[in-house]
């Protein structure tokens, strides 16, 4: 076989095509032409990357991180009248009965963080967790709730947090997408959740799967498997160079030439990045299968400079959406994520990556402390828990509180917009300065109103 260089020499394509190789190098492409070039923050960042473990369906706060003894006392009684005005998707609060968690809680770590004792492994990381119990918003259906959690707007078509981050910060890698999403099944709202909205498409999330073609079109389709892609590409690039040479001053032409070389490199870099067989047996066993595998891939991706990884757990089937059989299902759900969460935190810490990687756990909302049907819980956005770890977050603390029954956030309330503002700040971005002009407005992730972040409490 001829080497690439030999082919170039023989076909006389040499000079132009070789010049390309230089052009392709990261330095060769001016920052203003590369929308993903690493950009400077508004102020020093606590975290560089994010791994967001998204519990699709909405985990129950009172069965995970926000135990409520009062529920046991009032088990089976009607919720107090002032809660009757809350809107829920499927049920009417006035017709519900309060329902105690059937799970046992213990306090873990030096800080004594209360957790469902089903978190056998994660409980050992209790001192790394900052549990935020006062999360709330007002959207009680999955689809708009998931949009809101990701884009700050319950309507479809707005840019997601990951898109805003890559728009604001760029990316540390050329060979991989800046914002990667993994999921264990289809999401209720579809792929628009990681959409770029009105931001350029370059900031869109990339949905990857494991295997040889983690990204769409990463391998030539079967019928073209016989072609020599590099030679085809070199011929095209020779034509592109000629075309460009008579059209000076058009950076788009340069950018497109470069994009082909980036794509070419991505073809080998992406499968490598998601190939967990390159990890030691010990590491693979630490993470376990299923959700754990996604966590391991996430670690590999942030290690390689990916800005944000989002893992959706509980998609497709009922997942965390426990309208029935809440207790048994939460036992199983907790079991299915416990190892992955714990392994991720432990492994990131061992590799010195936890300081620069913000790990977030949570769903689009929480669940009612009261019954739906016999033993289910309906959606409730009025007070729910998430936790954050790493990325400059001080662990071993609880921020905010819900009422005695865990229905509504009452102290140190954190609205979804406040949460977004907090995350941006942790990444070194000023939530009010991160804007993009669209529809005659300087659009922001956090909306028009001033937000109250919990940056100071967290760090």
């Amino acid at each position, binding site marked *: 076989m001829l080497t690439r260089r030999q*082919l170039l020499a023989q*076909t*006389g394509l040499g000079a132009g095509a070789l010049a390309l190789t230089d052009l392709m190098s990261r330095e060769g492409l001016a920052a203003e032409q590369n*929308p993903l070039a690493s950009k400077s923050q508004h102020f020093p960042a606590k975290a560089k990357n994010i791994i967001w473990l998204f519990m699709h369906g909405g985990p129950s706060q009172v069965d995970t991180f926000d135990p409520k003894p009062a529920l046991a006392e009032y088990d089976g009684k009607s919720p107090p*009248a002032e809660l*009757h*005005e809350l*809107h829920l*998707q*499927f049920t*009417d609060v006035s017709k519900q009965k309060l329902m105690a968690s059937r799970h046992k809680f213990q306090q873990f770590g030096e800080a004594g963080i209360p957790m469902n004792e089903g978190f056998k492994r994660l409980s050992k990381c209790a001192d790394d967790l900052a549990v935020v119990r006062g999360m709330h918003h007002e959207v009680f*259906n*999955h*689809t*708009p709730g998931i949009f809101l959690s990701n884009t700050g707007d319950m*309507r*479809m*078509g707005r840019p997601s947090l990951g898109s805003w981050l890559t728009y604001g910060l760029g990316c540390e890698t050329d060979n991989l997408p800046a914002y990667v999403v993994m999921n264990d*099944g*289809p*999401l*209720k*709202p*579809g*792929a*628009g959740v990681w959409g770029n*909205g009105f931001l*350029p*498409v370059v900031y869109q999330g990339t949905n990857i*799967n494991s295997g040889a073609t983690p990204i*769409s*079109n990463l391998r*030539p389709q079967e*019928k*073209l*498997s*016989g*072609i020599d892609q590099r030679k*085809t*590409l070199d*011929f095209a690039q*020779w*034509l592109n160079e000629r*075309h460009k040479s008579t*059209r*000076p*001053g*058009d950076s*788009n*032409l340069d*950018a*497109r030439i470069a*994009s*082909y070389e980036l*794509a070419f490199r*991505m073809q080998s870099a992406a499968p490598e990045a998601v190939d967990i067989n390159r990890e030691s047996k010990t590491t693979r066993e630490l993470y376990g299968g299923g959700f754990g595998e996604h966590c391991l891939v996430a670690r590999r991706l942030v290690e390689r400079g990916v800005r944000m990884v989002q893992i959706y757990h509980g998609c497709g089937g009922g997942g965390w959406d426990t309208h029935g059989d809440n207790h048994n299902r939460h036992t199983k759900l907790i079991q299915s994520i416990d190892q992955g969460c714990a392994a991720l935190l432990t492994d990131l810490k061992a590799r010195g990556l936890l300081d620069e990687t913000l790990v977030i756990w949570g769903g689009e909302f929480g669940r009612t402390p009261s019954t739906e049907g016999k033993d289910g819980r309906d959606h409730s956005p009025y007070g729910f828990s998430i936790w954050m770890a790493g990325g400059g977050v001080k662990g071993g603390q609880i921020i905010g509180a819900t009422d005695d029954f865990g229905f509504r956030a009452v102290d140190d309330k954190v609205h979804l917009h406040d949460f977004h503002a907090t995350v941006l700040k942790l990444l070194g971005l000023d939530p009010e300065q991160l804007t993009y002009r*669209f*529809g*005659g407005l300087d659009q922001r992730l956090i909306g*028009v109103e001033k937000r109250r972040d919990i940056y100071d409490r967290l760090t």
Partner: protein
Amino acid sequence: MIDQMRTILLSCVISFCFLGAVAVGQRYVDEVRSDAPVLYLRFDKLSELESGAEEKNKTVFDSIGKHHGAVVGKLTGSAGVLGIGGRSAKFDGRTSVVTIADDGTFRLDSLTVEFWIRTKQKFDDSFWPGSATFITKATPGAGTSDWTINAASLSPGTDQGRLMAESGPAGHNDLFLWSPENQKLNDDRWHHVVWTRSEKGASQLFIDGELASQGNDGGGKISNDRAIQLGADPIHGGGQHFAGQLDEVAVYKTILSAERVRAHFSTASYEGLLPPIAKRQVDFVADIQPIFKRHCFECHGPDSEEGGLSLARRGEALTGGDGGVVIQPANSLSSRLVHLVAGVDDDKQMPPEEEKLTNSEIGLIRAWIDQGARWPQTADIADPRIAKALQHWSYRPIKAPSIPGVARTKWVANPIDAFVLAKLEKAGIEPPGIADRATLLRRASFDVIGLPPSPDEVESFLAESFLAGSGDKPYRNVVDRLLESPHYGERWARHWLDVVRYGDSAGYELDSYFDHAWRYRDYVIRSFNEDKSFDRFVHEQLAADELWPDDESLQYATGLLSVGPFRYEGGIARPDVVQYERLTDLTDTVSTTFLGLTVGCARCHTHKYDPISQRDYFGLQAVFAPSQLWDVNLKKAPDNSNDRKKPQLWTIQNRNSAPTLHVLRRGELTAPAGIATPSFIRGLPGGGPLDESETDSFKQRRTKFARWLTSKNNPLTARVLANRVWQWHFGQSLVPTPDDFGLNGEPPTHPELLDYLATELTENEWKLKHLHLLIMQSNTYKMSSRASEKSLSLDPNNRLYSRFPRRRLEAESIWDNLHAVAGTLNREQFGTAVVPPIEKSALDSLINTNWNVTKDEKQWTRRGVYVIVRRSLRMPFFDTFNAAEPATSCVRRDTTVVSPQALTLLNGATAGKQARQFAGRLLRENGSDIDSLVQRAWLMAFGRKVTSEELQQSVQFLKLRRAELKDRKSNELAAPLGHENSQPALGAAVVEFCLALMNTNEFIYID
């Protein structure tokens, strides 16, 4: 300790106010007591008790006897009836109920029920069981010995704001007495209600002291042993909870006479509360305006209208604010303005913080109002924002500009060139030469029909041009041919579909398919093809159902209003939320589409830059409020019970009545702030409230709106359209912010040129083809895209058009180009959306996959405009190449370059297949002579002749690759399609060659 102190202090303050109020209202209480009620709930002690956590404390006290009411749910104290004072009970509309147990006292067949209400709740539910219950002693069934007084609407779905008193004597028909149709009781004011009924069945209903209705129910027993219930109906459950205030509830064993009713009502007036009226003739300019300026203008001045109220101009001041009318000429007693400045309403005082008005100032205002509130026109203080806005370029009338003089007159083919050249000469840049003929043909072809010229078209155009010398005839012929092509409509419809946020499905979780969307898309294509006057096109899209209800060809023209995103999920549906989202989508889309304005900001607050207030915004929503989606198959408005998984076939129809819309504080549905009247933006020429004086005026709102858009004095629509047409020809617009012609947008680079084009448009029957021809015959359009050094340094962003803007093809054009060059483009027109196969991984992200690939494979290569636009899953090929996001109006395609685009064209199934088709076509049409194959390939892929160097390199590439692939087994080689292949190695080399051409910049960039 300090907290305790504060509590004590506070309670002192409260009791003080309380005592004062009781004194004021004592006359009313005395009147009531003199008629010896058997129950009298004043709710004055409520505030002390509502905070008590203990259930037993939740009681409202009967001020006459011991019939205290038990409170269920949340009941709060609130300001009582003005003029009576004290407190009232505020019902939350969800949980609050007050029950007075039956002990025999209220088993009355002859009685009077009296109370006061104040509410903003919608009264739009059917007349029984109604929208909300005020007070009832109900039993199940008709004629079952009971009575009730509730809020209702005789026309379900319409907020009539009416009250209904019912008596149901045993064995007779129920009698319903209604409050007058023209008197809305849910206007957030206090209203006095008295209902009487004699044993013989004579019933009377009094509203605000006046007899409103009377009748006879036939007589007999209406008493029963049920509890009296306030705020909800015990029989019909929680759906009819009252949201608002109730006060001074009294029940009498006697029948109050009309005189007594009037006496009760009149003693409740505010007279005792207000400062006395000044006893002299008052002059507005000398006496009143200075008071307004000093105390009110900071928030309600010439350029500020908090709460929607300005006191700077007569018209607006008398119209009132979000809360309604504040000045009632000749009636200072009832004027809200007087109440507010006097601070008699204990939840609100004006001004809120600044210095209060003195009694003598209030007395002057009262005198001014009572003397007729005369306000000379000359005393109006103009809104500086409107003045400023009207100076803003886009709000000024369009004026045909004079053509500027230039030095290089030879370059000027028509006025367009003069406008462009004048600026270039001023900048010292020489315009470039005319593009070469092949470039010109390819440019025009992609521009007008979105397809590449065929090799024959290229060759004959080059030959004719050669023969014609410098003559323009061959080019003109090409332009005419292209404009007459049926493909023109397909190309230009796609531009329009971006702007109107076209989609073939509803989006969100269920993402139901639209069966009407493609019919609208076809209508748009046909409209462009027949060069329909654009003003007519606007009228059809906004109001075809109102204007031409019987024209079947226009049945789906209003698709603009029905192809937007639409949210539906399972569970408890909130029709009000769904309706609000729909109106928001329509208002925002239509404003961007036709006016080039961002009105969306004004949904939550008055616009910071443009003269668009919240009232203007909701005034626009009100224009669309009577319209509803109409399910053609089911012949009814789609609701939550419909099977949303089936494709929806919707049109637009007006309802039978206009729903009442409210201005919403912060844009929140839960914060209504006064009725929104249908209006066009007041600060724009021809704007203001609609004349709704005729019967069924509401059925013409969209018609009036469409006519306003295209009227002579509306300067925006024609400018916005002219700008779009220019942008679609040049890839960049004259107004750099095509979605914002307002004060915060950028001004046009060539304002006179824009007005010239807008004038050409409106003076030529709004015909787009007239503009196309004009633009395409200019040298500005025909010039070369090659940049000179001077052009690059002096005009780096090409704002001056110192070169033709090179541009990348849009997603659909890349798709069309791939198929056209490969010879596989199916040029069939119209019909249902085509669903081509896509990669499985893309479908993995969907819950309801529902991607039913079109069976006929030939359909898969239809033009991009016919390919499905599914909201929850955009075609990955299109999405990657920056197709429009159909959630909102897209006025400009983004053209960012990203590596997934490279992967799509290099590895993707569509590109791979079309490369093999292209190879097959070349071999089939040329045989295996490599030289002619390359020449032909160039004509097809790039619309020009190959250069000798390109030819040489291509031949060398093909020969080398043929040699390298010679020994491979044929099943290891990429095979051309549609060609019997005797030389597999050559075939594979040609596939690589074709794939390379399709991946070049030249393939998707147009010079």
